[in-house]
């Protein structure tokens, strides 16, 4: 709760800093705010479940852990916005405040207990993202991305809301535990309401599926990521996804855990999972722009995370939650590094294709190393956090008997090695040409952030016990 209050207050304060028109001040302040909130967040660790707003939000270890991930992600991401600072971007304070506010939404998503809070969280998170997607005002693609994201987002929010309404109609409540109770202890006449409940549930899945870009509701992802300024695209693909999956897991575990509902959602989620893995991985192979590749890769990682949802075993804090926690952390860390390097290279070389990376190992060893670590992590190669992320998710699934699903996912991750290696090949094994001969400028902040991300990735890959089993 402390983090929500702090973020809201400091976000407002940050807006006032904008009046000074001193962008150089903004970046350190932003990092200070995020660092502070991240520290304060862990005060609630192991304090037990604390209800707020009449129990509409609950802060427990689950929400503290996921809040930690989104805050950490934002903290390491911020240094990559430095170009805005240097270019004297007029609205920087507003952008930063929008990021802080959207984090409030993310925190509500990981700690909600009441469907209204889920809806509010999603909206707070999304509205900020709609704006930020179009923040590059003079760029046509950015405008397109914002419009596309907004229209689709509004549409799917409507579907989600409709789903909630139907669930409410069937159970008479918005509170997760009460929905679960109503499903498991049917009142007289509940049988006739069941179809309404199921349809409501499926509509909610569709809404959530859109937010985490799971197939077949993923169509917006590549276009929006491509058009959105890289910095905000990185935020979208990490923070939004982490919060979205935590919320999705809560919904499944706390509202629809009953065996009678499982008959509906299990096949639905399994189908979504298979489709997402297939489209994400196969789609990424065909891309020539790294940003689009990362967009498809983010779809494919939604597929791996869906496996953890499918395999959940009835408790909020168990193998699935741990799997999602570890996976989200490893994925976020690697993705921020990848987007960060892509942004730096694109800013300097005005190119977002693979050849734009040619010879980067010679001109910028640090960038090349950092991108390599993140690609290996996303591909799930040992020594990186990505390996244990996949390992925990897959073991959770194998343990619950979903062997076929895991085999499919393993085959898909073999495919993924193809496209994750391509940037590495460009950087290390191809020579520079006239366009790519010059070193990409990197500031100390960014170098520090990249080193930190690489170190975190390796740390998670060597000592996974630090995070695994926390929940």
């Amino acid at each position, binding site marked *: 709760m402390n983090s929500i209050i702090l973020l809201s207050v400091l976000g407002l304060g940050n807006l006032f800093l904008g009046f000074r028109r001193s962008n150089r001040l903004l970046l350190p302040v932003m990092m200070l705010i995020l660092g502070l909130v991240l520290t304060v967040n862990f005060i609630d660790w192991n304090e037990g479940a604390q209800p707020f707003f009449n129990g509409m939000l609950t802060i427990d270890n689950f929400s503290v852990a996921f809040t930690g991930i989104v805050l950490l992600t934002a903290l390491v991401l911020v240094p990559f916005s430095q170009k805005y600072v240097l270019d004297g971007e007029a609205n920087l304070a507003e952008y930063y405040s929008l990021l802080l506010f959207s984090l409030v939404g993310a925190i509500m998503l990981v700690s909600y207990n009441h469907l209204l809070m889920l809806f509010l969280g999603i909206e707070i998170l999304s509205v900020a993202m709609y704006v930020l997607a179009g923040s590059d005002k003079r760029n046509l693609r950015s405008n397109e991305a914002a419009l596309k994201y907004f229209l689709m987002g509004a549409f799917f929010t409507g579907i989600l809301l409709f789903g909630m309404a139907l669930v409410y109609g069937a159970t008479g409540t918005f509170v997760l535990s009460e929905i679960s109770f109503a499903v498991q202890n049917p009142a007289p006449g509940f049988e006739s309401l069941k179809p309404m409940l199921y349809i409501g549930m499926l509509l909610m899945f569709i809404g959530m599926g859109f937010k985490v870009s799971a197939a077949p509701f993923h169509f917006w992802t590549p276009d929006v990521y491509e058009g959105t300024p890289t910095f905000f695209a990185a935020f979208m693909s990490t923070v939004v996804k982490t919060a979205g999956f935590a919320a999705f897991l809560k919904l499944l575990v706390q509202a629809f855990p009953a065996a009678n509902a499982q008959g509906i959602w299990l096949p639905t989620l399994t189908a979504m999972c298979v489709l997402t893995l297939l489209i994400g991985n196969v789609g990424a192979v065909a891309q020539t722009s790294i940003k689009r590749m990362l967009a498809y890769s983010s779809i494919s990682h939604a597929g791996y995370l869906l496996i953890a949802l499918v395999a959940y075993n009835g408790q909020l804090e168990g193998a699935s939650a741990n799997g999602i926690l570890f996976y989200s952390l490893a994925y976020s860390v690697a993705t921020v590094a990848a987007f960060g390097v892509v942004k730096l290279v694109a800013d300097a070389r005005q190119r977002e294709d693979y050849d734009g990376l040619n010879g980067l190992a010679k001109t910028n060893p640090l960038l090349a190393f950092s991108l390599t670590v993140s690609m290996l992590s996303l591909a799930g190669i*040992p020594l990186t956090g990505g390996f244990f992320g996949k390992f925990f998710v897959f073991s959770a699934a*194998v343990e619950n008997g979903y062997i076929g699903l*895991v085999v499919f996912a*393993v085959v898909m991750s073999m495919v993924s*090695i193809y496209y994750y*290696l391509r940037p590495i*090949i460009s950087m290390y094994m191809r020579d520079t040409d006239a366009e790519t001969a010059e070193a990409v400028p990197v500031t100390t902040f960014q170098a520090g952030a990249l080193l930190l991300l690489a170190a975190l990735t390796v740390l998670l890959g060597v000592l996974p016990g630090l995070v*695994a089993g926390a929940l």
Partner: protein
Amino acid sequence: MLTVLLLLWPVAAALLLHFFKGRAARVPALGAALVEFALAAYAAFTFNTNNTGQFSFDLNWIPSAGIHFAVGMDGLSLLLVLLTAVLVPVILLSAFRRNFENESVFYALVLFMQTGLIGVFTAQDAFLFYFMWEVALIPIYFLAGVWGGVNRARVTFKFFLYTIIGSLFMLAGFVYLYFQTGPAADGLSAHNSALASFYALNLPAETQVWLFWLIFAAFAVKMPIFPFHTWQPDTYTEAPAPATMLLSGIMLKMGIYGCMRWLLPVVPMGVDYWQNLILILAIIGIIYGAIIAIRQQDVKRLIAYSSLSHVGLMIAGVFSLTQMGLQGAAIQMLAHGVNVVGMFFIADAIERRTGTRNIADLGGLTRKAPVLTVCFLVLLLGTVALPLTNGFVGEFLLLAGVYQFNAWMGAVAGVTIILGAVYLLRMFQRVMLGPDSSFTETFTDLTGSELALLVPLIVLVFWIGLFPNTFLHLSEGSVLNILNEVVKR
């Protein structure tokens, strides 16, 4: 604890190399490798040949999943650790004559890979084994890909893809086995992944039959066994000489070692079911590699195919499931490592002086370089398996083992000795003897540092050839333990 030191020292050294730029990294890198060798030698001298696991270390690595950082050595592990510790300094030394960019990174990667290799040979936990297996792969990918020849990007990509897909199958197999095990000793987790728990599993035969392929896939690609070998000649040719030496001298032993440690005792019934097929594939590999080697014009490619042929025999020996076959494989791993590294080094020395690897362009080196000729001949005869050299002991035991299993197979596999003599002596004749060519006119003999590199290898050629028992009695107990595990069920 000694094993942990063996594992940590190369990594630490690799990180420290960061402070030495370019050529300044040469001496510290070699020094680090020599310290590692001293550690391994100390391990060998204090090793008690009763052959249960020694120098063990066990740390709870991922408590919630029952995964331990458990390492230890028995005789077989020790042999391979020794091989790694001997060859890495030699390989580093061989890189000294080359001038390439970012030397410090190159040496750091070699040392980093050493940790992975020693980890593979000492791991006592399935997931640690898998982890180290991949840790060894990443550096070699960059070593071959960054400093390799013209087609390096395509070739190393193929290599990486092949090996990683193989490994993923192995991982799937291990995960399956993991869920068949009981709770860890500390009771913190429902399953554990210790080697001993895998040995203790009693899986139904039909499970073992398919599980065999999951685990074998990774080893098959790494060794490589026909028909999983297509990455091998290309990669050996395109990679820079030191990387090729790492690949052929040490890395392919990971596959054979893996079969002996993680395949035979874990899925014995699966091995029994597929034994004939694997032996036939291995023998096809022997003959096929040898025949293609005869037709090669490129010295490096010729050695690559000869290596394919020799590995085939080691696989056949392992899968004969006889004591002689396994002992032969153990000693031949050492002998092959020594010989192939020496051969690749000489091929590289010739290429550096003449700028060509084409056999037809060479000739008449004997008169210009008598020392090189002698070294080359010794290594070559070791590879051909002349009695009193290292190759003879191994090939004799291997062939005897295969013969013991099936006389016909033994007879066909024995052709390798004849064919080996054909292509190797033919190469020797055309490269070293005969008239000069325009490429070899200014040829110079070995320098002191090159000789310093070859001398230990040549000493080993004779040591293993004359006193094979030094090494055979190290591995004997481990081999018997492995066979006991196989026969037990």
